[in-house]
């Protein structure tokens, strides 16, 4: 295992951080571990961007080393995935789309989740709001069926149908 900070020396310090049940592991050589200082609570021994670089480094999975990495680049701002890995910051909002398949793992490591559940902006989020509402109605429908409340279930089914029609209109309008 190579140190995830300097990517040069052999790692001898293994640090495990658990946030919300999600484990983040980092391997460091002695020198880097010393430079990064103590692992106390008040200091932030690693710059978050170093940590991200560690998470994204292909060395984390040695078996994948001989799979040639494709050159991925954001079409909007020209940031490459490697560059993102080094500085730990995206170039623009489109990078999220461009690098998506690889982001989910990283997001789970950082946040313990890869799915936003919070606020949805009103103006741009119309379709998203509708989708959310449909999901809620579907859950209600399942519950109604389980309780054999068929009249309620029929109403819910119609509501879902209406919402789905709305959704296809919104989608058509956007794309």
């Amino acid at each position: 295992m190579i140190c995830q900070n300097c990517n040069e020396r052999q790692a001898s310090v293994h640090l495990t951080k658990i946030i919300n049940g999600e484990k983040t592991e980092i391997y460091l050589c002695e020198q880097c571990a010393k430079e990064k200082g103590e692992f106390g609570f008040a200091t932030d021994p690693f710059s978050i961007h170093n940590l991200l670089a560690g998470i994204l480094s292909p060395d984390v999975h040695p078996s994948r080393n001989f799979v040639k990495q494709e050159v991925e680049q954001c079409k909007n701002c020209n940031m490459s995935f490697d560059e993102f890995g080094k500085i730990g910051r995206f170039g623009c909002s489109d990078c999220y789309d461009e690098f998506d398949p690889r982001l989910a793992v990283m997001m789970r490591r950082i946040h313990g989740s890869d799915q936003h559940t919070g606020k949805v902006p009103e103006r741009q989020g119309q379709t998203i709001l509708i989708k959310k509402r449909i999901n809620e109605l579907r859950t209600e429908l399942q519950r109604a069926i389980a309780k054999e409340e068929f009249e309620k279930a029929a109403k819910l089914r119609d509501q879902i149908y209406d919402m789905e029609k709305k959704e296809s209109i919104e989608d058509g309008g956007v794309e």
Partner: protein
Amino acid sequence: MSLQDLIKKELSKWMIAPGPESDVVVSSRVRLARNITAIPFPNRATTEEAEKIFDLVKNALKEHTPFELNLVDLAQLSDIDRTVLMEKHLISPQLARGGQYKGVAFSNDEVISVMVNEEDHLRAQVIYPGFQVEEAFQLINKLDDYLESKLDFAFSEKYGYLTSCPTNAGTGMRASVMVHLPGLTYTNRIQQLLQGVNQLGLAVRGVFGEGTEAQGNLYQISNQVTLGRTEEEIVDNLNRVTTQIIQQERHWRNQLLEERKEDLTDRILRAYGILMYAHKISSEEAVRLLSSVRLGIDLGIIKNVNPSILSELIVLIRPGFLQMIEGKQLSTEERDLHRAALIRKRMRLSQNQGIE
């Protein structure tokens, strides 16, 4: 300008106004990170793109809004003025270094501030005095709704609000409290508590100074995770933990009063004495002593000093503020002299008439 006028005119609401549970919670803050779709983030934007962002925000705030925000171009300000804004927590250290098309918009009472072209295109925050995380969230949420009606924020269904650093994606929200914990510190309970807080997904750091020694026993506690939790869950979690901390801190303060009253009183009155008479003082020593004085006020050991002295002076005695008051650059020694003089004046002010 008299000291009273200076305090009223130059300090923000969170430093001078009373707030709930302010014996432990100094201030509550919520900030949101937002970006405009497709325009590169500030670390990658060209000058033209940075200018475009600046103008977009300027236009969005131009109309008469219920928030009354005035956008200031930081390039127009002196180094000292930018440092003062940083010391008031209205801008970040990064923005205090200045640069083209970087700005901050804030309300008159300085409760709201919106940074432009910091790490993200927009960083909006609300700071209230005392324990008011929920209230701060309500206000910032309204501001966000307003801004969203004018600007195209980058948002994805999966990753929420898209930010320059992936650690802010999702809600883009960081909610925090600044807490004053002398009771837990003097009874050596602090490490244990803070480790517990860490395990609950909250980050803790000293407000001043580096490492585990938090100067003035002041700590900032904030959520670490921004994705996969709703804003309400984040606020709720912080509120629950803070409520626990308030109870613990009060418990240990009372314990100190019961078991080590004479030592505690001595410590507090010595701090009071030094602040009343020191001729020269560093900000580190001042913050430490002010913490003791504030504890003395909260425990009824010091009776004639206004409790807001701590939150006022931790800002007023910073280098930028001292230099702004004197209207010139000051050496370290000159600052230590002016700082001591300012504190002496402020201590006597509350003795005679109080600030209100």
